[in-house]
């Protein structure tokens, strides 16, 4: 693996072209992934922007032949986790890891503009609310496993945990999600 570029090195045309291609080919997917993780458009924009800046800085550490999308999803995931940690004190919100039924308390950490506003159908609104009510860790594995259709192994690499953790987290998340969908369906 090539050594990471030093921050004060002048940008090369290859580096600029790399970023340009990355945005063009994977910008939309990255933004949608960030949007599903955060359930908030402003946060998704910030995450996407920061992720591509990291890509630009560390472009030499990307190994050709590996999945760029997995790489940038890992960056987005790490940035999101850091942001949650940073905001945790501010919002004083517990991030449940267990399967205890969790009612949405109204203190959603990153949702200022909920994604449900963007989805017109009733079903979409229900699903959006249910996803938003999951913990960030649970939402992450559900999005990666069921929407992005990654394997447990790939999710473990992106999230930075063991396959066993991915499996148990996904099981709990899906059970929780099913209850939440029923709950919001009954309400609407």
């Amino acid at each position: 693996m090539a050594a990471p570029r030093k921050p004060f090195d002048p940008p090369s045309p290859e580096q600029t072209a790399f970023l340009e291609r990355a945005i063009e080919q994977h910008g939309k997917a990255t933004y949608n992934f960030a949007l599903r993780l955060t359930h908030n458009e402003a946060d998704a924009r910030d995450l996407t922007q920061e992720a591509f800046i990291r890509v630009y800085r560390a472009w030499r550490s990307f190994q050709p032949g590996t999945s760029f999308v997995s790489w940038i999803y890992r960056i987005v995931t790490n940035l999101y986790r850091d942001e949650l940690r940073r905001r945790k004190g501010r919002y004083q919100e517990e991030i449940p890891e267990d399967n205890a039924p969790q009612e949405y308390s109204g203190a959603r950490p990153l949702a200022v503009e909920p994604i449900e506003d963007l989805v017109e159908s009733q079903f979409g609104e229900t699903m959006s609310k249910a996803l938003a009510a999951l913990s960030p860790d649970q939402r992450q594995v559900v999005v990666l496993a069921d929407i992005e259709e990654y394997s447990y192994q790939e999710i473990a690499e992106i999230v930075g945990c063991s396959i066993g953790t991915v499996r148990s987290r996904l099981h709990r998340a899906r059970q929780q999600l099913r209850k939440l969908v029923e709950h919001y369906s009954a309400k609407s």
Partner: protein
Amino acid sequence: MNQEHTTTENIIDYLHHELGPEADAALLLHLKSCAQCAAMYEEQARLSESLRAFARASERELPQGVVARIWDAVDAQAPQPSVTQRIAAFFRPAIVVPVAAVLVVGAFFGYSATHHASPMITIDAAYYLRDHASINNTMPFGESSVEPTSLRSDESASDQQWVASTGASAVAETR
């Protein structure tokens, strides 16, 4: 597996193709013969399909503002020039030439203003108009008086010589 009901966890792993080949085949066989487990499977499969449908419905384009902000941030992070580069940039001709010209002009006028040379002889304008000019005009043979352009005399040879010496003959010929 065929006789016992399976677990939700197994069904979720099966849905995500995460069971080993043997367990996968066994569960497939069981689902064909067990309505209760098949219903559980259908429920989990519907949840997965609902998630994908929601993702498709809520998919958004990457806002152009985000792209612009990425490039702005990248430009802002471009390395700053070193002190040597800044000095070299300062001494480029576009800056040095005008600065040098300003310094030379400033030095010249500054020197003139601070070091007075011998006072120049000046004539007061009022004096010139009132006295000097009027005095000269009233002295016909003064140094500043207007000389006649030609003198005519046919009688005296000395006069002819004087005319030739003053160039008056040339004037006469042109006439």
